[in-house]
């Protein structure tokens, strides 16, 4: 057992997998000599040397293309895209090439690779460094998408991602980097496609992701205290594959659903979850499905504005009460 930050968990996860498998290599901008702009990869160069840990030019298409080609030819590469907003400059490689190649070749080409990136807002970086792009990736067939909310999940889900034979988009939430928890020593390996009930409840199912999980938990406590309603909170953890079983099972018990999403409203992951529940658990539902999201705007830079844009505990509590309506 050691207390670890989410930030430190990233380096520990990469070390765990690079120690285990000599074909795991890691590239990105400022990741080697500098240890990463978020200091998530400090020490990796010293430990594994410049053949396995490499700095790249500011060439995201080349970075993502390189890991794709390397994965085709015997490596298990990991790429860092510094901020998830920059997926936009290499989206063709991610969405049109990596995601589609196994399918287009009818299984001839395997792409065991991971692209990790700092996702999400809350740190006043403005509209081009704060986006929640998990929905961009979820919408592309052929990508697995993982969004851990705790240091322990960072390690376990990252290990699962590296060991997975298919391409995984691994989105770390930059606002969670300083968060801490006690993490057991030794190897940690988790499973993709598994959600976790982080707070059991009876009256309402609340589905949240990444930085919205701690907020949903606070909101659930306040809901219990203020109106005596018991919310079950589920950390989705993995958008693709999606653990619909856990979500549906919960909604069948509570008869109500709310999602808490950091991304802007339209076509967020919660819309997909809502549409699944609205078909498959419709007759179990007692009230409207409520989505709490950032309004459909880019994230503003000023703290006063960013705090008003991203779902706050207050706003979540208020919206959850609408989900309790009869």
């Amino acid at each position, binding site marked *: 057992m050691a207390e670890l930050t989410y930030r430190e968990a990233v380096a520990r996860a990469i070390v765990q997998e690079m120690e285990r498998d000599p074909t795991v*290599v890691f590239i990105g901008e400022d990741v080697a000599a500098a240890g990463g702009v978020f200091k998530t990869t400090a020490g990796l160069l010293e430990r594994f040397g410049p*053949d396995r840990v*490499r700095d*790249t*030019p500011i*060439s*995201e*298409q*080349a970075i*993502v*293309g*390189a*890991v*794709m*080609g*390397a*994965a*085709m*030819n*015997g*490596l298990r*590469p990991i790429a860092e895209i510094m901020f998830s907003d920059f997926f936009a400059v290499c989206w*063709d*490689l991610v969405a*049109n*090439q990596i995601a589609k*190649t*196994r*399918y*287009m*070749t*009818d*299984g*001839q*080409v*395997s792409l*065991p690779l991971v692209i990790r990136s700092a996702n999400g807002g809350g740190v006043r970086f403005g509209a081009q460094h704060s986006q929640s792009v998990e929905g961009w990736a979820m919408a592309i*067939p*052929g990508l697995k998408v993982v969004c851990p909310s705790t240091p322990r999940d960072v390690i376990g889900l990252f290990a699962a991602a590296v060991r997975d*034979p*298919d391409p995984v988009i691994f989105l770390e939430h930059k606002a969670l980097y300083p968060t801490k928890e006690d993490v057991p020593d030794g190897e940690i390996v988790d499973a993709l*496609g598994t959600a976790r009930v982080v707070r059991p409840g009876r009256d309402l199912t609340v589905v949240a992701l990444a930085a919205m999980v701690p907020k949903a938990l606070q909101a659930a406590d306040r809901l219990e205290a203020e109106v005596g309603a018991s919310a079950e909170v589920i950390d989705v953890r993995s958008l*693709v*594959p*999606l*653990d*619909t*079983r856990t979500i549906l099972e919960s909604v069948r018990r509570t008869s109500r659903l709310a999602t808490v999403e950091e991304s802007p409203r339209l076509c967020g992951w919660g819309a997909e979850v809502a549409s*699944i529940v609205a078909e498959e658990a419709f007759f179990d539902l007692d009230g409207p499905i409520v989505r709490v999201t950032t309004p459909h705007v880019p994230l503003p830079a000023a703290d006063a504005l960013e705090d008003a844009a991203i779902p706050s505990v207050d706003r979540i509590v208020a919206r959850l009460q609408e989900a309790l309506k009869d």
Partner: protein
Amino acid sequence: MVTVFTGQAGADLDQDTRLAIYRSMIEIRTFERRAHDLFLEGLVKGTTHLAMGQEAVAVGFAAAMRPDDLTFCTYRGHHHTLARGASMAATMAELLGRATGLCGGKGGSMHLTDVRHGLMGSYAIVGAHLPIAAGAAWAAQFRGTGQVVACFFGDGATNIGAFHEALNLAVVWKLPVVFVCENNLYMEYTPIQAVTAVEHPAADRASAYGLEGIVVDGNDADEVYAVARLTLGRARAGQGPSLVEAKTYRHGGHSRADPGTYRPQEEVEAWLARDPIPRYRERLLALGVEEAQLRAIEEEAQVKVERAVEEARAAPFPDPGAVETNLWADGGSAWRN
């Protein structure tokens, strides 16, 4: 500064290699002619991009490559696919959308892939495969396999960002990759000259990456073979990447839909006169090869292609259930439990 390459026409080429080159070019030409008929018959759906006239680039390189070397090419990739040894029947079956196609019908003409023959894919988004090829070369370098990657693309691809990023990374990491621009003077319908800041879209960019600018006659298989030997050899010896601009011409339009009428008649005729196949045939005769031997090769190609067509036409269409297979390594496409 651009070096026009003349490797005194592959002095080191033995006759067997030359005959193999001729056979391969003839097979590709015959295959594409038949493929074209099959579109007109409506048997090939969608679109396709013939390489008629550009065979020497594919064959010259393939002849100089090691079996474990890797090829990355574009939607205009029939010539590279066959030159590397993919099954003709399976290639034709892919065009016809049959279950026995190289990609089970999922890829189609623009995405021919045959990993067993080092064909790592035909890419249909211009420029995308250059960084991917660099990545495959990086893995070869890292693993010390001695493989070299050959990456083929068109003149139009030299103006897209991925070209720039891939060339720079390949040089900085000294990767064993040879980038080959098949400059056929046109993009789809627009001349490359009309939209490019320099005369040689690839070779005039080489210095931006500290590379030598190499231009080669892409309609002369021996020249291509010689430049392939040189650049693949350098890459294998750890001397890093090369950028080769092969001047060539497509005899037909850009794609099945295109009659190619935007090209001046004189230009077309001048290039038809430099058709790489008759040219090579004459050279072989001049080198003392028997006319009969060449005719035999040509007839064998006809037979081989006809067999492939028959086999492909007889092949079953894919089972609709195949829509949901092979997205993931587990063979399926499930996104939920």
